């Protein structure tokens, strides 16, 4: 610590992910109001502002904010309808909730000094598990035991079907892991890299390069934030299709 202080480098890329109580105290209990609470609340407030205030006039010719709300609606609605088919449209509100939460959390995380809730596996694992359990339960409720037919690839020769079934089952259970780690990993890595590079700005010689790199990375991270929200959502739709679209794979 003291060495870093003397050299002028204060690079703590992981400090931005620390959960802190907002109103003092050291202990973080499950109910403690923390920076997690703050940034989730900001996200919820912004979503409410966009979707409720933006559309409050219900204009035939939309205002700018109403246009954005309608765009989000149309985007997610089309995605659900195209990927899961007509059967899946009734799960549109859940998908919309997921998409809005992830999108707003990711983009808000790019504000300087903010806290990125989706950079934590605790959050993304819960999201992914909700999808995984929801899809699995829904699959069994809709198709009964026939849902297991998903793992029995009838289009393959009989001899290799057991092998394929094993692979399919493994890949099925890996889904929530990849689903959650992908999002958290992308968010964490991008923010950490920006922080590390920004730390070099205290070296006068390289600071112009640093500023350029941070700007470029920031643009890239903006893209990643939106794309990861999209990826998470469309994968949710793909998983959902297995449950509602029958056992055909």
């Amino acid at each position, binding site marked *: 610590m003291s060495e870093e202080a003397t050299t002028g480098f204060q690079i703590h890329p992981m400090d931005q992910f620390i959960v802190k109580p907002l109103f003092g105290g050291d202990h*973080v*209990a*499950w109910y403690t109001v923390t920076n*997690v609470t703050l940034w989730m609340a900001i996200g919820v407030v912004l979503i409410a502002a966009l*979707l409720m205030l933006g559309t409050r006039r*219900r204009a*035939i010719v939309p205002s700018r904010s109403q246009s954005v709300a309608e765009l989000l609606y149309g985007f997610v609605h089309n995605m659900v309808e195209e990927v899961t088919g007509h059967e899946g449209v009734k799960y549109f*509100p859940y998908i919309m909730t997921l998409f809005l939460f992830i999108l707003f959390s990711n983009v808000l995380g790019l504000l300087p000094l903010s806290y990125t809730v989706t950079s934590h596996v605790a959050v993304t694992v819960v999201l992914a598990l909700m999808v995984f359990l929801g899809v699995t339960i829904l699959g069994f409720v809709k198709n009964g035991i026939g849902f297991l037919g998903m793992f029995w690839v009838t289009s393959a020769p009989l001899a290799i079907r057991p092998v394929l079934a094993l692979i399919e089952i493994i890949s099925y259970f890996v889904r929530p892991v990849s689903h959650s780690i992908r999002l958290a990993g992308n968010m964490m890595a991008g923010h950490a890299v920006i922080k590390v590079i920004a730390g070099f700005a205290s070296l006068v010689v390289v600071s112009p390069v640093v500023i350029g790199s941070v700007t470029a990375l920031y643009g890239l991270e903006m893209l990643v934030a939106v794309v990861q929200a999209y990826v998470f959502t469309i994968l949710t739709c793909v998983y959902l299709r297995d449950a509602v679209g029958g056992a055909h794979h």
Partner: protein
Amino acid sequence: MSSEPYLEEAAGVCVNSHGGAIGMPQLCTEWFPNQIFWLLVALVAIYLIVTRVALPRIGAVLAERRGTITNDLAAAEELKLRAKEAEAEYNKALATAREDAGKIVAAAKADIQADLDKALAKADADIDARTAVSEKRIAEIRAGAMESVTEVAKDTAKELVAALGGNADARSITAAVNARMKG
């Protein structure tokens, strides 16, 4: 300030004495309940916003807009049809008007032609009458002249005959002069 860091597992904290992170804060299990609890609260809040207010409202607006557009398109189609009808009517009226104008022009032309013909005929008649009068006068003058010439020829012939020592009666001289005049 002691630089001795807390042991992650032993102390059960994920930050050191300087407030810096120890390892990856993402793996700090102590914070999990807090994050999960607030995540569920946020998700429920968003879900309520989405299902109670936003989606029905936006869906209604979109449906209404689709309806309005369909209606407007139908109305536009109808108006287009009516415009076409009006255009046809207009064209018809235009054709009629053109035809009428043609008729009027033809009538006017005919009138003018008739007047012209009449005037020409009258002028021709006038000219003919004048010509006749003039010809008559010319004939008279010519006849007069012929007579005078005959008279003069007779007298001259008589005088010439007399001068030459002939004795000619008036009748033979006249006959001779007439015969010459004819020849």
